[in-house]
């Protein structure tokens, strides 16, 4: 059996890739993908811990996370579409009508 630490390292790596993507990419769609990576890192954790602890709570919760991630993407794509319509770009740093 694969030790639980391996899963944690994997999920931490995926999470960090997501964080890196958020910090470096300016494309809103890339940002969305990076957030998805972070959510899936949490899912890896949940399923691995669920296996480790011997209860199904974590696995069921990861299903909820997946559904919510999809809902979040749906709302996000909608917002990115109106962003494109208003600013002719999906660069998140272009939208600066208000002072930061």
């Amino acid at each position, binding site marked *: 059996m694969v030790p*639980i630490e391996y899963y*944690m390292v994997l*999920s931490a790596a995926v*999470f960090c890739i*997501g964080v890196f993507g*958020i910090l470096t990419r300016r494309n*809103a769609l890339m*940002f*969305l993908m990076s*957030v998805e990576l*972070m*959510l899936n*890192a*949490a*899912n890896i*954790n*949940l399923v*691995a*811990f*669920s296996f*480790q*602890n011997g*209860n199904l*709570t*974590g696995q*069921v*919760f990861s299903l*909820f*996370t997946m559904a*919510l991630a999809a*809902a*979040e993407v749906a*709302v*996000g794509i*909608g*917002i*990115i579409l*109106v*962003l494109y*319509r*208003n*600013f002719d770009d999906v660069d*998140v740093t272009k*939208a*600066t*009508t*208000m002072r*930061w």
Partner: protein
Amino acid sequence: MLQTLQISGTAALAPTLVLGVTALLLLLIDSIDPEESSSALLSGVATLGSLVALAAAGAILVATGGEPQSLFQGQLVVDGMSLFFTFIFTSVTTLVTLASYDYLKEFRYKAEFYTLVMLAATGMTLMASSNSMATAFVSLELASLPSYALVAFLKNNRGSVEAGLKYFLIGALSSAVFVYGISLVYGVTGSLQFDAIASELGNTGEGLVGVLGVGILMIIGGFAFKTASVPFHWWAPEAYEGAPAPVSAFLSSASKAAGFVIAFRVFTVAFPQSTVGVDWVLAFQVLALVTMTLGNFAAATQENVKRMMAYSSIGHAGYVLIALGALTGSANQAFVLGAGMIHLVVYGFMNTGAFLFIALAEYWGVGRTFEDYNGLAKQAPVACVAMTVFLFSLAGLPIGGGFLSKFFLIAAAVEAATIGTYVLAFALVINSALSLFYYSRVVKAMWIEDPVGDFEVGGYPTGLYAAIIVAAVATFLLLPALGLFTNVAVDAAASMIQ
């Protein structure tokens, strides 16, 4: 007696169910004839739904006396705390739906607006009663996702879209951080239910405290987003400035309160200070101090009234964070939490009212800076009296409930009697004094300054006016009547802590 009356099963969730059914009803009404939506009907249904939910919450609170009701095998719990906050959410929702009647008249997608508001309110009431990380996360998302869409509601307005984008980006990031934190806590304790987490924490091995600490920090990050406090605060000025003003009112009052109720429950029930090896009280003390100072200082430098209110709302999040930062071992814990809850009630009315006044100004086409408000009192004295009550109450002058609730917070912090809480109490006094400066700039502009050009207000919209006056009367009455709420709040906090 009434106290022993049992409200069994799902009936205890009546406020949540009413709000959810209202949202579906609005969708169905819109489906009948999407092209011709009647503003009065939609606004009426939404307001009625939130009023019924408000009444239901009150009735359940009176009937059960805040006795905890565990539902769905402990996934949800309906107790004094959740009903108290349901009261806040439903009153804010009522004010906002009432005020939106006039604000939305010229927009096409009215039904969608009300549906999203009702869905977000449903999520908030669920947050108040969630008793497990799973329900907490799902309800938090149910409250957040409609809010993103609401902020970007004016889809041809660049400011609104930009605000929606920023709110969404930070929101998505913080919810990912939040769920990762949950997964770490689940790994340590093997459970998602709050009381089960607390009982498992006693058996945690030495090596796992680090993982638990990271998990708790990440969960704090999730709450910091929802309550607009440091470090996830900087979406707030953008989102509140760009969003339609009723939405800003809704988010800054109800959404913030929702973040706090779930934070209160998680940190007192799931991670009680006595069993967790992680000093989260210190973390909250630092966050409270930084948040209130940053919010107030930034507010003092603004030229735009709406943005000033946004920063002041960050400052108020800092005040309420005292309720978590003062939960030291020596404190009277029920009183500390109760003080935070009371401030949120008063804040719900006065802040909603202030943002609705801004909505009124937007409705009239008045500009957004302080100068644009010059001489408004000559045109609309009633609304300006109300706005003055809101602002002075926000600053903590004894004209509205804000005075007493801030006093309670200071008393709670002083009573906890550690160096950290003394600093917090002191910071609250200093910051309130500073806030008086920038709030009174608006009052001065409205009452004393002469209007720049000749300007006629365009009509007196009934719904907006009604909402503003109700909020003003409530803010004013909360000064003498706050005793009523104090007992309920402290009892609710006490029954949750034990």
